Each structure stands twice: as structure tokens, then as C-alpha cells.
């Protein structure tokens, strides 16, 4: 066995890779459970790819057969119901895990130097994930699938000059039809390849800059511990907790994330009374609806998703540490999470009276937080410097071995 390994090692850095990037990979010892979500996102990705592969063996991407083939999977295929509910619940789990992963990054300031590329590849992954989920939602060919795709592809009408042509080009016809279903199936199958590729880049970047940690300050080498066995054990425990919640939905409430209307076959002649996207699109959908103008709404919605990428520029404070040592930033973070929740709610219910106003205010707050961040973060830096940094930060920075240096500019 060791002879074989030597043979491989002479030709490929296998042992070196395993040691440097898997078992011996240096990890900050103070990571909290919020750092489990990156691993969980990777796990859900594998779960989706594998369950999706088996679904694709029985699914028929044909407008006259798609709906029936899903019922065939649910009723006739051995454990088809399990595979399908894992996949449909998995989509929601993916977004839940990613949203928490992003919230952790925002809270602890993990997007700051030197981890900007991690944040931007993550932003790319979010966009790919959203696209994949959107393509996948058409495949069951239910009423909500059909009309959701109709509404979203219709947004491209806002494109200047070529609006109508682009919509027809995307759909492969004047409305959603068989051509759309086939191409969405192909893209739904193809996009995960892009996701996997970008995940690898995300991981290479991670292994260059290493994990951030709750203190927000890069720790001295002695405070890093090998990934195995410490974080393999911790990730397994986190995975167990995640799976309990996940399986609860799969086995006991699998239709929780599926709109009742999607159990009615797509009918191009009958618009549902109330078209809602999946829950993970609701905040962005609420922003779209809050702007009365179509082009304005589309731009605002797009901006609300990609604006995260600007965080490394918008946050101008040099105070080390995340929200933990930055009281003003912390308040902004909590306002943002609450605002996100309000937008989710507004996106889910039919727009009426006061809710329209609430949605508009929440949209305004959403963008105002990002717009004001450069000024607030700078002012906060000055204020904290005048007041003196928290004792823990001073101590961490003073410890000779910490690679981070920071001096108040005052």
C-alpha cells in the first residue's frame, strides 16, 4: 500500500494535498457553529446533484409529459417520492444555508481584506444558485411553475430597444411552452457544473487566505489547529443537527415549500389569482414590486442581489473584528436582517394598501443601509479610535505573533 502511494506521490502530490488541504489544513480554533454552514452548503450541493441525477432518469422534459412524469416518480418509481421530496426540500435548504452563510460573513466582516475574492466568488455562486433554482422550478410544469416563469422572463421586456425580441429569444416562443421547458431542463442540468467549478475556485481562494474567525483578527499560527480531527468532528455534529431538521420537512411536511397551485397542471389560458415565487426569492420580488416602473423595478431587483459584492468597498472602517467590536455596524446588521424578513413577508402577500407602503419603506431602508455604510463606517472608526478599542482587540493586536497591525489614524 505504501509502495503504491509512493508511486502515486512521485507523479501526483496526493499525500501532500491530503496533508496540506484536508487533514492538516490550519483552522482557527475559535470558530463558532456559524462556521459550519460552508460545509453544509457543500453537502446540500452534493445532495441536490445526486438526487437530481436520479430524478432525471425518470423525468420527461416535454410539455405534454412533464407533469405526469412527476406523478409517475411520486407514485410508481421505487422511493421516487423520497428522491423528489429530498430534491424539492433540498432547494429550500440550499438557500436557507446560503443565507445564513452570507449573514455570518456580513456579521463578522469576513468579506474584508484579504477575503474579497471569497466574497465575490460567493456572490457568483449565489447568482448561479438562483438561476439554477429558477430553471428547476419550471420543470414540474404546474401552474405556479408556468406562471412564475412567464412573469420572470417577461421582466426582460424592460431591456431597452430589444425588449420583446429578447423575451421571445429566451422563451423560444411567444410564451412559455415546450421549447422553454426543454431549454430550462438542459440549463438546470448544466448550471450545477458551473457551480461545482466556482465552488472549487471558492475553496482554492479559501485555502490561500484561510478561514476568518469570530474575532475578525487573523490569529497567530499557534492558535490554528489542524482541520482533522477537530473540524471534521465538529462538521459531522453540525451535519447531524441539520439532517434532523431537513428530514423533518422531507418526511413530515414535504409540501410546506410547494405552492398548492403547483399541483395543478400548467394551463396557459388560466392565470392563477396570486402568483408568488418560491420563498427564497420573496425579498427581491418585494423590491421589484415596490418600484412602480418596470425598468426601475428590474434594475432595483438586480441591484439588490449584486450589491453585496460592493461590501468590501462600502465598508471603509479599518477597525479589526466584525460586528462584535463595532457597535454601530452591529445595529446596521440587525436592521438589515429585520428588513430582509419584512421584505420576505411583503413579497408573499398580495399587494394592498399599507403593505405597498411598508414594502416601499423596506426597499428604501435596504438600499439606504448600503448607501450610508461608507459614511457610517468611517464615522464609527473615528469614534471608536477616540474612545479606545475594546480591550480584547488591543490584546489580540498587541500579541507579537498576530499578523494584523492596526493603528488608529488619530
Amino acid at each position, binding site marked *: 500500500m505504501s509502495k503504491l502511494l509512493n508511486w502515486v506521490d512521485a507523479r501526483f502530490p496526493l499525500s501532500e494535498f491530503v496533508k496540506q488541504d484536508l487533514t492538516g489544513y490550519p483552522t482557527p480554533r475559535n470558530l463558532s457553529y456559524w462556521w459550519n454552514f460552508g460545509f453544509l452548503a457543500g453537502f446540500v450541493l452534493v445532495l441536490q446533484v445526486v438526487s437530481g441525477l436520479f430524478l432525471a432518469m425518470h423525468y420527461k422534459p416535454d410539455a405534454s409529459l412533464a407533469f405526469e412524469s412527476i406523478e409517475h416518480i411520486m407514485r410508481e418509481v421505487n422511493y421516487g417520492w423520497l428522491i423528489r421530496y429530498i430534491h424539492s426540500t433540498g432547494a429550500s435548504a440550499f438557500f436557507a444555508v446560503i443565507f445564513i452563510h452570507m449573514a455570518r460573513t456580513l456579521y463578522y466582516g469576513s468579506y474584508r481584506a484579504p477575503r474579497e475574492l471569497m466574497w465575490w466568488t460567493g456572490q457568483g455562486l449565489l447568482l448561479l444558485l438562483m438561476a439554477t433554482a429558477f430553471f428547476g422550478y419550471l420543470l414540474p410544469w404546474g401552474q405556479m411553475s408556468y406562471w412564475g416563469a412567464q412573469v420572470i422572463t417577461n421582466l426582460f421586456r424592460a431591456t431597452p430597444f430589444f425588449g420583446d425580441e429578447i423575451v421571445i429569444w429566451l422563451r423560444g416562443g411567444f410564451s412559455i411552452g415546450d421549447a422553454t421547458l426543454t431549454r430550462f431542463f438542459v440549463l438546470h442540468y448544466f448550471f450545477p457544473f458551473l457551480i461545482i467549478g466556482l465552488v472549487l475556485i471558492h475553496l482554492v481562494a479559501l485555502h490561500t487566505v484561510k478561514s476568518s474567525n469570530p474575532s475578525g483578527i487573523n490569529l497567530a499560527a499557534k492558535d490554528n489547529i489542524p482541520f482533522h480531527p477537530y473540524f471534521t468532528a*465538529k462538521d459531522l455534529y453540525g451535519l447531524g443537527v441539520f439532517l434532523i431538521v431537513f428530514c423533518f420537512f422531507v*418526511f413530515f411536511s414535504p409540501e410546506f415549500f410547494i405552492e398548492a397551485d403547483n399541483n*395543478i397542471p400548467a394551463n396557459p389560458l388560466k392565470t392563477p389569482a396570486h402568483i408568488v415565487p418560491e*420563498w427564497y426569492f420573496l425579498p427581491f420580488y418585494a423590491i421589484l414590486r415596490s418600484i412602480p416602473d418596470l425598468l426601475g423595478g428590474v434594475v432595483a431587483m438586480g441591484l439588490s442581489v449584486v450589491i453585496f459584492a460592493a461590501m468590501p468597498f462600502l465598508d471603509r472602517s479599518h477597525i479589526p473584528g466584525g460586528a462584535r467590536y463595532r457597535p454601530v455596524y452591529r445595529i446596521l446588521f440587525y436592521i438589515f436582517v429585520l428588513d430582509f*424578513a419584512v421584505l420576505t413577508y411583503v413579497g408573499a402577500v398580495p399587494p394592498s394598501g399599507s403593505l405597498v407602503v411598508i414594502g416601499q419603506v423596506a426597499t428604501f431602508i435596504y438600499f439606504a443601509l448600503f448607501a450610508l455604510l461608507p459614511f457610517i463606517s468611517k464615522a464609527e472608526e473615528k469614534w471608536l479610535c477616540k474612545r479606545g478599542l475594546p480591550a480584547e482587540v488591543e490584546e489580540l493586536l498587541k500579541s507579537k505573533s498576530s499578523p494584523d497591525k492596526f493603528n488608529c489614524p488619530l
Partner: protein
Amino acid sequence: MNQKTMTFLLFGSFLFLTANSRASSDVSLAEVDFDHSVENIKSGAQVAMDVCRLCHEFKYIKYRNLLEIGFNKDEVDVLRGDMPLNTSILSTTKPEIASKLFGMMPPDLSLMAKARRGGARYIYTLLTSYSMDAEEHVDNKLFPGIKMPDPFAYAIRTDDVRQKELDQRIENVSVFLQWTSDPKAKERRRTGYYVIAYLIVLTFLFYLLKRKVWRTLK
């Protein structure tokens, strides 16, 4: 307020708002404590075969599936006539005639419970919401202007005994339609108990493992 409480409150409010946004759009449906026993499903199936099947199809249920809810081979043979066991249950009235009669194709019933918020409760409420006004005009309170004529003659029920009997029949039909929409529900829940129990034990072991591993750390 410390950080943990804050996080808890925020994610809690997020869940609450999301869950509420679904609940708030539910119409008020009858509160029924359904008994999903196989006997009830079977009685419901018998009513459905006698009444609903006149106009509606049960596209995703095949005659052989009736064997799973307590029908015996002979009973199924009577229902299917010369249709093979492995065919979907279709309506006894030709679809063209039914759609001419009602102005639309009567919808497939096998997925109906899943296709309406509230499932069996929706179906129960719908079937018990027929009533007659002073001009002897029958309409449905849950679905005004519904094209389906009162299938159980609920609007013209005469006395309490008759009403009780009808309520029971409608309850059984609702339970049956819940089954046709999700025939694997029982198997799924049974498997679920084992899976969750296994996961709880496994997670506890992982927790012990994590603690043991981390204790070696100075």
C-alpha cells in the same frame, strides 16, 4: 440584550413572518378532526366511485391501487368492468358529454387535495358549503358560482340525522381524496419516524465524538 438573544429573536421573527405570510391567506375552512383510517378511506372510495366518478376522473389512481385500501379483488373487478387492473380510473360519463353539460371539463380529482390549500379540509368545506336561498337557488359559499351541482344534495338536507349521515359521507370522501393525492403519506411518515430516531442517536454520538476530540485540545 446579549448577542445570542438578539440572533434568536431576529431569526425567530423571520420564521414567524414567513410562516404567517402563508397562513394569513388561508380562507376559513371547517375545523374537522379527520380519521384517516383505512376503513374511512375505503368508505370514501366507495362514495367517490358511486358519486364523483360519474363526472370526474382519478387520473393518477389505477384500479389496482384500490387493493391498497382494503378493496378485495372481486370488489375491484365490479368497479373496473372490462378495464385492465393497471388503468387509471376514468369517469363513467364520457368527457365530451360532461364538458358539454357543465361548460367545462370536470377536473381530475386524484390530486385535488394537494392542489388546494387546506387539503381534505378544503374539500370537506366545499362539499358542505352548498345552501339554498329564498328563491330556491343553490349556490356554494366557499366557491360562489361553482359549476358543480351539489353532488350530495347537501343544500336540501331535511333533518339532523340526514345531515350527520351526509357529514360522515363527505368526511370519508375528503379522507379518500387526501389519500389519492398522496398515497405514500403513511409509508413516508412511518419511514420518517425511523429516520429521525436514527439521526437523533447518530447526532448524539457525533456530539460525544466532537467533545471527546476537542477535549484533547489544550
